């Protein structure tokens, strides 16, 4: 920690916290982002469907709707500035035989009310757009403004840009309390000591209720972790060019069939309330559910070609400002404690909404009376780590000549080079764990899931960080890979 006081402290370095940090970095403020994990984006932000939703789905008039639509407008330009992989793929919400046929028109109406372009497609038109769709398709809603994004790069890109513009990211730091005097925040208690600040932005995801309770506000607000599981498939076995949703239910948008910006088909998520906010297990039941759900849309989806599985925990809150509208984001200046801004209950469409939520956070900040003076030298862009895998033969040649570290492939399946790994370790928010490198380079996300690259990656981390191999972790304290040397007695 460089200082013991800041103008603004953001709790949570997920997509919301990172986009907020980026916005704040435009102003002459001292800003710190705290996160209890060893890297940015270790929660929901990197275990989700990676969809830039169009905004047709949320109830009109809600913050979810408002920020989804606005976020969708902002994302593509931000992604260009920050070199975040993104594609405007459009999406289809598909009605199959036992769905209520009136549902599509209802959805379309909702979309129009939200100001989102929508088009109802006939069965034939839907099948033409996506030949792998089930023959039971009866029609679809086409939303051309939807897209897909690299969720890892989204967080890392925003966070790195914020860091380069002066925001301090303080990781491995847990907030344990708030010091409030005369109804005003004056400091935060953390696991690394007290941090004085008069403004705190609560973007703590699945723990945002706990943060509020530390401030003594909104005791009735509760977040329950709602797990969603996913499968990722081998590109050689299956490629799908579209993004497909089933008709929504009270559980949510349902189990999708989509593809990543990397080209892999991905399916999920299901929906399961769980009590342990740190339990990221996948389950047998969940795996069957997402496979069944996916096959309802695309019968060709086969469990045999799965190369990765993961689970994300949604920050599902109980804030229902309008009774029949279901849950909404809880985005507010706290009425009870001056200086606390809550960006809570951010589950889907949180990722797409993040830049818009960040805009709103700055507005709320202004309302607190904080003087916001724009920096003249704010840098809007950021240079991403080159993706060797996507470079042409000529480009690769040039890169290796510039830096021989790019000539050594560490992850065979994804063609990730030592050069990229070193960039990740030496970046503005350094990768210090295996998973952090994975998020920044896609290392270990292919067929072999790390079998080939583990030893080499650990060696590079050990060398660069000046640690022994037995200190290298997968995802921070408590997750070492290696227990001791084979010949411990001697070496």
């Amino acid at each position: 920690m460089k200082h013991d006081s800041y103008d603004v402290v953001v709790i949570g370095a997920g997509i919301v916290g990172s986009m907020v940090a980026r916005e704040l970095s435009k102003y002459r403020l001292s800003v710190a982002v705290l996160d209890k994990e060893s890297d940015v984006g270790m929660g929901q932000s990197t275990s989700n469907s990676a969809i830039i939703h169009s905004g047709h789905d949320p109830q009109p008039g809600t913050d979810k709707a408002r920020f989804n639509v606005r976020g969708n407008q902002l994302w593509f330009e931000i992604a260009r500035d920050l070199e975040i992989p993104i594609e405007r793929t459009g999406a289809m919400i598909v009605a199959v035989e036992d769905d209520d046929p009136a549902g599509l028109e209802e959805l379309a109406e909702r979309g129009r009310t939200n100001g989102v372009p929508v088009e109802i497609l006939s069965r034939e038109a839907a099948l033409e757009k996506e030949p792998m769709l089930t023959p039971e398709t009866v029609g679809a809603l086409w939303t051309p403004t939807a897209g897909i994004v690299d969720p890892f790069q989204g967080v890392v890109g925003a966070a790195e840009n914020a860091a380069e513009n002066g925001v301090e990211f303080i990781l491995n730091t847990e907030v344990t309390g708030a010091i409030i005097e005369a109804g005003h925040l004056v400091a935060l208690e953390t696991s690394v000591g007290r941090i004085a600040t008069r403004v705190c932005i609560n973007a703590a995801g699945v723990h945002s209720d706990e943060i509020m309770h530390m401030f003594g506000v909104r005791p009735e607000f509760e977040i329950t972790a709602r797990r969603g599981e996913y499968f990722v498939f081998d590109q050689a076995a299956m490629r799908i060019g579209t993004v497909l949703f089933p008709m929504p239910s009270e559980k949510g948008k349902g189990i999708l069939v989509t593809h990543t910006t990397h080209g892999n088909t991905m399916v999920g998520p299901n929906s399961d309330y769980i009590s342990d906010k740190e339990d990221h297990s996948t389950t047998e039941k969940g795996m069957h559910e997402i496979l069944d759900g996916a096959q309802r849309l695309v019968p060709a989806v086969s469990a045999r070609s799965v190369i990765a599985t993961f689970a994300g925990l949604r920050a599902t809150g109980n804030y229902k400002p309008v009774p029949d509208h279901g849950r909404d984001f809880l985005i507010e200046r706290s009425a009870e404690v001056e200086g606390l801004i809550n960006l809570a209950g951010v589950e889907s469409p949180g990722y797409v909404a993040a830049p818009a939520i960040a805009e709103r956070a700055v507005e709320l900040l202004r309302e607190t009376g904080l003087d916001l003076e724009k920096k003249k030298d704010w840098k809007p862009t950021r240079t991403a780590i080159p993706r060797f895998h996507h470079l042409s033969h000529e480009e690769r040649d040039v890169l290796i000549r510039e830096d021989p570290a790019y000539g050594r492939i560490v992850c065979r399946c994804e063609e990730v080079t030592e050069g990229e790994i070193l960039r990740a370790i030496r970046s503005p928010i350094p990768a210090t764990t295996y998973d952090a490198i994975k998020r920044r380079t896609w290392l270990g996300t292919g067929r072999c899931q790390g079998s080939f690259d583990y030893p080499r990656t650990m060696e590079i981390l050990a060398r660069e960080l000046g640690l022994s191999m037995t200190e290298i972790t997968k995802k921070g304290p408590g997750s070492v890979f290696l227990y001791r040397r084979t010949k411990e007695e001697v070496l």
Partner: protein
Amino acid sequence: MTIVKEGDTIRRTDICLRCPQGCQVETILGENDEILSISGNRCKLGKEYVEQEIRDPRRVLPTSVAVRGGVRPLVPVWTPEPMPKDLIMDLARETRSIEVEAPVHVGDVIIDDWRGLGIQLVASGEVAKVE
């Protein structure tokens, strides 16, 4: 290996280790543990194996030892001649505190005549010296 008592005799079943086929060899032993018959082996090695196994079971120990000043931290080693089975973990334990100086060559004797039993631990790999 399984042993079944059948009246005055004992039927013993072993998997022969001498080649990848792993024949299941059956031996009938008499009252004084003498071998009455051997069957199930597809070649004479099976018979040799079982006779040895009953009298004095032996195994090869393949492991590694630490190398000082080498391009790699370990060199693979083994006992080319099988050693008494019940002493394997003793030797294994001892190899954890041995260090040899690079360069190490295939065939280098790491331990000669372990415990006076004529057991040799020999390098089975090459480790060059760091320049």
